[in-house]
């Protein structure tokens, strides 16, 4: 295990060391160590991350990495942050989305003001936004959605109302109202249809229940045929009904999963 950690730290140091050399003239926020993005995509995403960072004072990072190499996603992300801090001068207020490509695992890590802006519920919602893109190997748009959500949640946090369970998105609120209107219309239409049906009472009879005698069953059976058993994996749900952010002893909060 120690060997593994040393090797991965070595890889990280090498990665960031090279990056620092290559981009010495400006701060970088997107590190594509798994080589899944084009140069133009990296530049566009980096520009967006930089803009958000400068606007809200919370650094937004996006990192792709070849594999976890035996670590948990959150462990690797913490190591990456340590190296960013060491070699790149990363601050205390950060949010990092890391993808480990071999295991197709991701981790969102937040620290400092990031913990305020990205609550547990906020991270769940954020993950929903990019996971469908990553599931389709649409890397650029996955990171784009991540940054757009960072922009939105940081803006809310700066205004003193971080996104959480009790401050659902405006879109969802509107969606709920639309659903409420549609259901109301359906109920109204059902009531009106029942009343309209009373206006038409001349109908062809399809059954003869008024004239039937007792059913005489001469033979019957109910025989066991077969049994089907289906098992569906249901991963444990994090209880985030109460809102807020769960921060570990190192001062970071995480949200990990597969894509």
């Amino acid at each position, binding site marked *: 295990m120690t060997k593994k950690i040393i090797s991965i730290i070595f890889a990280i140091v090498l990665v960031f060391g090279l990056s620092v050399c290559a981009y010495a003239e400006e701060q970088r926020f997107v590190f594509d160590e798994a080589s899944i993005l084009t140069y133009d995509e990296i530049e566009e995403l980096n520009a967006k991350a930089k803009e958000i960072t400068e606007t809200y004072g919370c650094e937004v990072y996006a990192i792709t990495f070849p594999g976890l190499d035996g670590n948990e996603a959150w462990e690797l992300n913490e190591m990456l942050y340590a190296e960013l801090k060491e070699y790149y001068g990363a601050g205390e207020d950060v949010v990092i989305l890391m993808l480990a490509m071999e295991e197709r695992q991701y981790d969102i890590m937040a620290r400092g003001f990031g913990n305020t802006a990205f609550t547990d519920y906020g991270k769940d919602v954020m993950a929903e936004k990019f996971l469908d893109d990553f599931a389709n190997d649409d890397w650029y748009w996955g990171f784009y959605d991540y940054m757009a959500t960072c922009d939105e949640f940081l803006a809310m946090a700066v205004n003193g109302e971080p996104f959480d369970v009790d401050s659902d998105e405006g879109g969802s609120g509107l969606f709920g109202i639309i659903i409420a209107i549609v259901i109301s219309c359906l109920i*109204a239409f059902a009531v009106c249809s029942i009343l309209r049906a009373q206006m038409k009472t001349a109908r062809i009879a399809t059954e003869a229940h008024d004239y039937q005698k007792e059913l005489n069953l001469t033979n019957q059976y109910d025989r066991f045929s077969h049994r089907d058993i*289906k098992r569906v994996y249901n991963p444990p749900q994090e209880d985030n009904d109460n809102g807020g952010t769960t921060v570990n002893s190192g001062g970071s909060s995480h949200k990990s999963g597969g894509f």
Partner: protein
Amino acid sequence: MAIDITNHKCPACTGPLHYAGASGMLECDYCGSKYSVEEIEKLYAEDVAEAEEGFEANEIKKEKEKAEFEAMGMEWSEEETKGMKTYSCPSCGAELICDATTAATSCPYCGNPTVIPGQFTGGLKPDLVIPFKLNKEQAIKALENYYKGKVFLPKAFKEHNHIEEIKGVYVPFWLCDCEMEGSAMYKGANTRSWSEGDYDITETTYFNVMREGSLGFEMIPVDASTKMPDAHMDAVEPFDYSELKPFSTAYLPGFLADKYDVSQEASMARISERAENSIKSEMRNTVTGYSMVMTERENFKFNNKGVKYALLPVWMLSTKWNGKNFLFAMNGQTGKLIGDLPVDKGKFWGLFAAIAAPLAIISSLIWILL
């Protein structure tokens, strides 16, 4: 020409008699005398027999005259006379032109109720009849009541429409005793779910279910007149068969009556379809104890156990509104009234908005608050 139709006249004053459902007797419109059906049957047995014979003789005579006129090039075209018959009113001598199936009517000149017993001779004679129990006034009242509580009925329809025509008709029906027998196969399933660790487990147990048996039916009615809309005749069911009586022309005066023009054979398809649907649902109802039941196969055979020919009482009411005819039918025995009414689109969408708008506002507020 021999006499082929009968006017039932009051033995006391010779005024026209009509059958009154309330008293169950034949009543004179003029002197108010009342006679039982049996009394009138006895009195008019001779006249009815004479009219039946006259009907046959006249049929032959009319055919002969038709041939003669055709030879002279004076005959009406076949299209013009199709489905029509002529009779002479025994009271005023006027010529009555009726449908070929008309069995009871009234003279448009003297107003006397007339019966054409020849339409019911031989194999055409009905076995049974349910006499009218409700009169014209009760039918009109029932129609007025029918309008009540219909929120989409245009106001002008209630206020401005008037009954164009109301007639009491003895409608010819076939009453079929029959049995359906056969079997059905179903697949029954029960499901239970539970969790084991991080897995949700669903167990579905399937059963092969078989039911075999028979279901008897007593007197399924089907109207045997092409003039009567099937949907209206089906919808006025059921009739109370305990009041079925052996057929007598004495029940007919004062009402219209038709002989059948849809054969038993032609009616069997509708009867067997109704019987089959009934046994299907009855058998399906015996398959219990499953959370899900799928029908896999059904195989039923129809056995005709005998058909009776009956005349059943129906009041037909027609109204006109905005150039459209609206037809209503009332069971002349039970008073069940049916028929299609116009829908005021403004009222429909008005009520829709009145329900949808507050519901939408309340549910949206609840959504926002929660």
